[in-house]
């Protein structure tokens, strides 16, 4: 088998599958989004042009879910990078050595490896306002009981806290591994110059690991779009629409109760466009900022 034959034999089948998996559903979704298909309504399906898209931007509930999704991404990315890379990684890097360090790393990745449905239940049990252990601890300080998931003011933060819990530890573990590759001389030179510990991190250590760290940051950003599992198990978008993200709303409209397939399709197209635009902007920005 020549190089060329090998190339063709293995590339063609795989890319036929991948192109099909990527483009067929999307083209379908775009096609449906121009129609008025509704599972609950037996009227004949016809083309309505951009009507669904126009309706989206006058739909208060859609705009609400857009706002909640953006807010979710910002706080989960921000806090998990801050806790993980800013606080936990230096803490372990400076104070845990040898076997203890390995144990810490091992424990840190466990929250992220748990099935998100499982993690969601674990926290729902702890958040409970009647039997939850968190409210029990708060009662020592004469606080509560707080309806973490029942109160619209707290619900989104309570769910986001779980995502931050999973990701802070994972980002910390990854940062610690990155820190291990830094040559000792650089750090020692810095400390001889009398730099304080936080200055060492801020000006010497973190700048060295920025390129690999940016890809971690980027991945966390993409993953923050996958909030459905947590929100479905903990609040299902409620109370009211206080935690209804884009995917939750699109699910209710298209697949859940409403069956408005065309309308939900237009939502998934809009989501895709927003994601592509945001990714491009952030990625370009990160690269430029680094240079």
């Amino acid at each position, binding site marked *: 088998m020549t190089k060329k034959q090998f190339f063709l034999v293995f590339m063609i089948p*795989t890319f036929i599958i*991948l192109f099909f998996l*990527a483009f067929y559903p999307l083209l379908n979704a775009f096609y449906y989004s121009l129609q008025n298909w509704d599972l609950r309504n037996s009227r004949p399906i016809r083309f309505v042009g951009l009507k669904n898209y126009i309706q989206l931007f006058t739909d208060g509930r859609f705009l609400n879910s857009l706002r909640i999704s953006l807010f979710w991404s910002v706080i989960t990315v921000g806090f998990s990078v801050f806790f993980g890379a800013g606080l*936990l990684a230096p803490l372990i890097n400076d104070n845990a050595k040898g076997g203890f360090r390995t144990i810490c790393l091992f424990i840190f990745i466990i929250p992220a490896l*748990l099935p998100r449905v499982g993690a969601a*239940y674990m926290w729902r049990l702890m958040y409970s306002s009647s039997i939850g252990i968190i409210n*029990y601890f708060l009662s020592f300080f004469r606080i509560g009981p707080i309806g973490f998931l029942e109160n619209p003011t707290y619900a989104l933060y309570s769910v986001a806290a779980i995502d931050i819990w999973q990701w802070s530890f994972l980002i910390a573990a990854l940062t610690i591994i990155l820190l291990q590759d830094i040559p000792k001389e650089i750090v020692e030179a810095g400390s001889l110059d009398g730099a304080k510990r936080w200055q060492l991190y801020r000006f010497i250590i973190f700048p060295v690991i920025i390129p690999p760290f940016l890809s971690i940051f980027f991945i966390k950003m993409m993953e923050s779009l996958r909030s459905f599992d947590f929100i*479905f198990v903990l609040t*299902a978008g409620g109370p009211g629409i206080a935690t209804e993200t884009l995917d939750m709303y699109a699910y209710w409209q298209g697949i859940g109760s409403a069956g408005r397939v065309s309308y939900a399709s237009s939502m*998934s197209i809009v989501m895709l466009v927003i994601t592509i635009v945001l990714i491009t902007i952030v990625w370009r920005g990160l690269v430029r900022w680094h240079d």
Partner: protein
Amino acid sequence: MARLNGKNIFYKIIIIIVLIIALAPILWMFLSSFKSRVDIISYPPKLIFTPVMDNYKRVLQMPTLMHGLSNSLIIVPISLLLGFIFGVPVGYIFARIKFKRSADLRFFILSLRFMPPVAVALPFFLIWMRLRLLDSMPAVIFTYLTIAISTMIWLTIECFKQVPVECEEAAHLEGCTQFQVFSRIALPLAIPSILGMCIFIFILLWNEFFLAFVITSQRAVTMPVASAAFAVVGMEVPWGQICASVILLSIPPLILSYFFVKFLPYFFKVN
């Protein structure tokens, strides 16, 4: 040796507290899974109680959960195997053979992994509905190939790059065909790290919830979907059974996590 002074001990205590925060939800659920109905809803929460196996017994007799478990045990390995067959040789090609549009195709593969789930799930739901394959295992497996193949290619490119080029060049000179170089030299040398990637993809697919939730309802439900069925808001929550089923659901990823630390840096490379 680290000196044991006050500051040192202070930081050690902080680390212990941090580790407790990382593990507390899992440990609490593990404890609760052995509690009787009365102990679970007692307030203040009980740390000391008589452990019972009732929850596990009941969960192991629930048809939906057992069905979900056996479906997951079929769907995940098959998707992984197909991901391996279609993904690994392509990972090798990207690592070793230069061709036009290589970078563009790589970006396409990466973007597959990062598409918003709803943008993927809804179209798949409609396609499987039209083909009358909604709620069937082939539909789930085929949908999972999006994740399995793209992740497999992305991760194995790095594995093959670690193989010394000299070995492959020597084999070429000996008159080996390209396929022999791949199957007899490159693959055996790279297989330890490729197996690490397989573990990662196994966990990814085992934990996957949203896609399966959308395209299955009864016959083809996976374990996470079956467990999430408890979540109907407003119902009286059967906490004992939830705890037991979540622990069962979490066992495979927890066991595999042991192999995970070593390969961790691989999974977060975006070039």
